[in-house]
């Protein structure tokens, strides 16, 4: 594995962990963050979030990662799963 790639993976894993923590705290999930499937849909049958939780999640993501999702029309495409959130964060940080 090249250094670039391993840096990328390490950075992605760190962000993933942080997003999972935020999700667990926001949703008051009584499971360990690692148990959150990064590809499970956040809404509906997946993690069971709804529009009310989405507002809070966006506020948290903007605050912690400097995203500007609040009032952004792109918010709904960027917060579908944990992985799409991580993608959005990587993009803002110029790491993707």
């Amino acid at each position: 594995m090249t250094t670039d790639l391993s840096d990328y993976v390490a950075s992605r894993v760190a962000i993933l962990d942080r997003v999972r923590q935020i999700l667990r705290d926001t949703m008051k999930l009584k499971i360990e963050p690692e148990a959150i499937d990064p590809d499970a849909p956040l809404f509906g049958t997946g993690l069971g979030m709804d529009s009310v939780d989405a507002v809070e999640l966006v506020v948290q993501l903007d605050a912690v990662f400097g995203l500007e999702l609040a009032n952004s029309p792109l918010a709904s495409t960027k917060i579908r799963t944990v992985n799409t959130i991580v993608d959005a964060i990587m993009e803002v940080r110029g790491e993707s």
Partner: protein
Amino acid sequence: MSYAPHITGWGVASALGVGRERLRSALLQGETGIAPVRRFETSPFKAHVGAMVAGYELDDRDPTALCHEFGSLALRDALEHARLDLGCLRSRRAALTLGATLFGDESTESVARDLAKKFSIDGPAITVCTACTSSTQAIGFGADLIREGLADLVLAGGIDVLTPKLFAGFDALGVLSERPCTPFGLQMGTTLGEGAGFLVIERGGLRDAVTYAVLRGYGLSGDAFHETSPDPRGRGVAAAIQGALDDAGASKAEIGYFNAHGTGTMANDTAEWCAVQSVFGSELGGALPISSSKGHLGHAQSAAGVLEMIATLECMGEGLAPTTAGFQGPRPGGPPRPVGTKKPRPLAYDLALSSNSAFGGNNCALVFGSAEPTSEDEERRPVFLSAAAALSNSVSSVEELALIYESESAPTDGELEIDLSSELPRVDLRGIDRASELLTAVTSRALGDAGVRLRGTVRERTGLIAGLLRGSTDSLERFHGSVDRRGLGAPDTTAFAQVLPSAAQGACAKALNIRGPQSTITIGEGSGLMAAVLSARMLARRRDSDQIVAAAVDVRADDVEGGALFDAACALVLCTTPTAVEVAGVGLAGPDQLDEAIAQAQSSWGSNERPELVIEPPKPFAGLPATSSCFALAHALGSLRRGSARTALVASKGTTASLAIILVSTEVNHDN
């Protein structure tokens, strides 16, 4: 005996002015009270308009002081309209039923307590705290006090104050309209308001008073759907409307006008229109004159129901239907032709319907008008107590509660752990807060013990009345903390949806699928027993439920003895199916009238016998304000079942009312 609840006066303080004269002229002129908010800075928000009480737009006193002020103004106005002297209430067996929802540090019952004291109302003061349905339900419960002869005069209404935090919560949820709201119109979103309104409801014939209308009936239901959104099919609203029609003994064809909740949001207005069509059918429903007063008054939250009923009464008396201010054209999925011209439409009608819906899925509808009720004296059904569940530190069952009674030893301090997900494996419990978790646990256990399976129509025939003092401590801290840390522009919306006192009842109803009559009430200390008294009276008189769970919750309540923080909850299943223990007598009186409450319970039992057992709250738990009295009732049930005695009395002097319940074992009765 059953007495018709006569409405002999009303009073208001609203965005259209203080006093009913001002309200009437503003309604007749088609004015709106919605304007740019000046009381607080609205720059963090997307919306900037609100409907503040006229003359108080710049008054930035704390919300409790404003609550008191608005309430006093409306009460004085109501008494004047009913031609009652300010000081006369003491001698008139008066009671207060108030819709109020505070989510600050104060206990919710404090407003009712202070107003009752100020206006010399010696009888019970019951606070309904179900957000936007608070005053609607308070009117229904107030009318019941008259019907059942528990009071001769009731002041029933609601108060709310628009605070920056409330504005912040709604703004963040994205439900506020940037321009003044136009319910049923093309523009989506609501506008918040505030104010106070009271009705004077009396037993007819006691004095020379003008009866303007009779409160014919009310209906309650729960959506069991979502914490902030209504069921889009409008099933809960339809059930409340049907319940009100049944209670009134009125046919749907008799309803001449419908004052809808009509907040202006996409979700509410569409759901409500679905409900109208399902109850009235497309022909009657399409022809029913319908409007929403929120374009005039804003959404006054806990005062919305009473202000809208008063707006209807003012117009009804003039032979008019109130307008939907600001309405310019219908939206898809809403009523095609609401009353929407600038001035009220001439309309003669004898019976009107008014409905409100709230966060947590509460719905309440009222039927009122000049038409006299046709039904004969209602027959009372016997009510039984079929099961109880208790939960606190070191108590996980009614049997363990009995051990606490025997030993009188203080429970251990340790955390109370509940594993709800293993008890209710098929229920989605994600995001549930502490009060909701406790309430759901005891309610589920009590219903399980009673053998009630919430399937099919049983869901609609099962009710839930919660007695508690405030919203869940963890959600309150989380919401207030988010505002402190991130500012009013970014409050925690998930927590905001849970800060209301009624949030736990809504979450429990949703988790367990309870859709029958429901409410959240408080009298401060004794709130749990109040829930049981209310449930018993509702089951005895109404026909819309077969069982009601009366429950109490305390989250991190201060324990008087040790200073430890306790969580506690208790649920009792009251039903009309005969079981081993009957709720034979029920009493409700003012906070300083415990003897009167006991005498009432004794007289409704119809026996001169003294109850063999008198059960007090368990000493180690005496500091739990809502739950301790419920624990006493649960223990009384257990004692009668074990055969320790045949009769038991549980009485409690609460903060704003005194209560008494007499339980009688039916099995021993048969042996005699």
